[in-house]
């Protein structure tokens, strides 16, 4: 069988499916925020690799369906039906060849991007192995599902129609999983069986173990059903072939968490551990971002320096952490809690964005506030601009109306004396730390 597998690996659709998947995967990682991998964020790379399944799975299904057209297209069905080897044995080398190419294409791309980021990463979560493995299983299952469909519908149009329908379907599923951005909105939990993750809430999360297990069980069972459907020769056999999928669903779905945004993730406590500079002022990043500490500490200390004229200024800069959908990281009074915002996935020192993010964070909620106001975002950006003394490089994060308000207000505030500007920023920070007052009103009182 090894020899036949080798022949099929070179002569069947597998030989074209593999390179196609590889090219698509590279394209997905380059067009998605793939620099995550290059900058040493293993889990982010892993998640993006899984997200790329949104395109790879339809391609794999289409490739499988295309392969099963071969016998009819080349009129070999009659010849094959005169041979003694059972159908499942005949199709096994082809199915394994398709699975091999699909799996190798997926792993090679991940390996290449991982090697790229290997030198710079500061944290290597072992979960990535499981997450990638589940991705490979889903890809193999998709290929075999395509073959099973191709057997039932051996038409020219089957493969392209499958690809379009599945790309659309997976897109709709991802929308359903994050219906309106509201983390409290619920949806059916079986949607978590999709191997494409929904919005990943940070770099220090991983897919929950029971979700990994449920997905692995379900996709393995789906692969078993697909291969059985591919092999059976009687209607009774076809009916029995569905059994693994039913069994897998019965086992896997109850294992999944309740369907709500981000429900498939768990916090990776090791990734969240603080790694701090040894010298002062202390700057701390999560372990997952520790490789950025040398360059980020410069910007954070610059920000702390700009905040120094404020009464009781913060003396430590600590990276904000995602603590789950219902929990906020708390900002102590002596700490500047800042977002290490790597989107759009540049290294933070490539722009002044890091400084802006740091100061923006300094004026952010302390983590316990429950009341927010309409122009809080504008107020925080204004505070940062007043401390730095220039306008930000971009208006990213503000809508058109907010950007207009920001520029108009900055024009009026920037002409105030330095001491008055500092006083207003100090008032804003006090309001932030005590959760009292509308930040925009506090900052612009008597000027607007």
């Amino acid at each position, binding site marked *: *069988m090894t020899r036949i597998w080798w*022949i099929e690996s070179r002569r069947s659709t597998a030989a074209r499916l593999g390179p196609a998947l590889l090219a698509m995967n590279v394209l997905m990682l380059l067009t998605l925020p793939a620099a995550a991998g290059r900058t040493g964020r293993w889990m982010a790379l892993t998640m993006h690799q899984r997200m790329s399944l949104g395109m790879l799975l339809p391609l794999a299904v289409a490739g499988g369906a295309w392969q099963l057209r*071969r016998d009819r297209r*080349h*009129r070999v*069905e*009659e*010849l094959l039906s005169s041979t*003694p*080897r059972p159908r499942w044995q005949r199709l096994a080398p082809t199915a394994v060849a398709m699975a091999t190419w699909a799996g190798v294409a997926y792993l090679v791309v991940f390996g290449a991007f991982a090697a790229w980021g290997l030198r710079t990463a500061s944290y290597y979560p072992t979960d990535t192995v499981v997450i990638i493995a589940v991705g490979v299983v889903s890809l193999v299952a998709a290929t075999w599902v395509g073959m099973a469909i191709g057997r039932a519908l051996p038409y020219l149009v089957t493969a392209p129609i499958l690809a379009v329908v599945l790309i659309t379907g997976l897109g709709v599923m991802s929308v359903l999983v994050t219906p309106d951005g509201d983390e409290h909105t619920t949806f059916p939990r079986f949607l978590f069986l999709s191997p494409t993750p929904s919005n990943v809430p940070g770099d220090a999360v991983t897919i929950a173990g029971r979700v990994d297990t449920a997905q692995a069980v379900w996709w393995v069972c789906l692969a078993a059903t697909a291969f059985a459907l591919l092999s059976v020769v009687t209607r009774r056999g076809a009916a029995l072939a569905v059994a693994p999928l039913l069994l897998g669903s019965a086992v896997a779905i109850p294992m999944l968490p309740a369907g709500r945004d981000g429900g498939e993730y768990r916090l990776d406590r090791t990734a969240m551990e603080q790694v701090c500079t040894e010298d002062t002022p202390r700057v701390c990043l999560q372990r997952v971002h520790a490789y950025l500490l040398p360059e980020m500490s410069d910007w954070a200390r610059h920000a702390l320096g700009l905040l120094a004229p404020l009464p009781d200024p913060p003396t430590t800069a600590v990276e904000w952490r995602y603590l789950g959908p219902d929990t906020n990281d708390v900002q102590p009074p002596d700490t500047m809690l800042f977002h290490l915002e790597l989107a759009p996935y540049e290294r933070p020192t490539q722009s002044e964005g890091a400084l802006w993010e740091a100061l923006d964070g300094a004026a952010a909620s302390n983590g316990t506030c429950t009341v927010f106001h309409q122009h809080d975002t504008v107020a925080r950006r204004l505070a940062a601009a007043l401390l730095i003394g220039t306008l930000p490089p971009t208006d990213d994060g503000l809508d058109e109306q907010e950007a207009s308000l920001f520029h108009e207000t900055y024009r009026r505030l920037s002409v105030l004396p330095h001491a008055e500007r500092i006083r207003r920023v100090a008032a804003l920070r006090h309001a932030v730390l005590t959760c009292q007052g509308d930040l925009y009103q506090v900052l612009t009182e008597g000027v607007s």
Partner: protein
Amino acid sequence: MVRVVNAGEIAPSRSAWAVAAERIRVRAGRHLAVDGLDLTLDNGVHGLLGPNGAGKTTLMRALATVIRPVGGRLELLGQPASHGGDLRRVRRDLGYLPQQFGCYPRFTLREFVEYMAWLKQMPKAEIPGAVQRAVDRVDLTEHADRKLKTFSGGMLRRAGIAQAIVNDPRLLLLDEPTVGLDVEQRVTFRALLRELGTDSCVVVSTHLVEDVVAACTNVVLIDHGHLVWQGTPEQLADEETPDGIGDSPAERGYSSLLRERRGQAVTR
């Protein structure tokens, strides 16, 4: 490796004939193409003759176990093949070239014949040698590692014969094997047929009487799904009547037998 052998495998053949058909009826779609045909064939080369629509291809498909008869009794190589039989045992000793021979064009000839040998469950160690022998016998040695999509029609037909004979079948079924072959290739092929027929049962379906006369030891003439006549090529030539048409005694004998048969059918 030790393999468990079941009783059926070591049981003696129930019939001494390679093909034993008793009033078999075989459908081609809804049409009953073979209707109550009796036939027995032993080792040798048997030419299956008949006009278009006589039921030759349907009969060949039934003998190849591609379709099962809807009635009657069919035994192949001593195994029941009409209903309830273990077709796998028969198929291991079967070689078949369908009328419309299909193959995978991306495969090389060697790969395709090897693939067919594997499908015929030949022992792994014997496959490479058997493949080379089959390719040599159809005179495609130099083209063994070329992809089939580059083959001409005649070469593809010979590739089809190679895959059919790779397992040294005891029952070899060739449906229109000489289509696309040039004169030299046909002469070579006839010699191969005679060689194969010495220790196996070869059934060649054709409408070319000259091929049958040149290479076959036995002639089977069917029409409208019935056996019309069975005998040697020499006996076929002896059936010649003044109203027979054709360029040779055998062709005239063939047409005479058909006319006689059709006349009887009309009278009846």
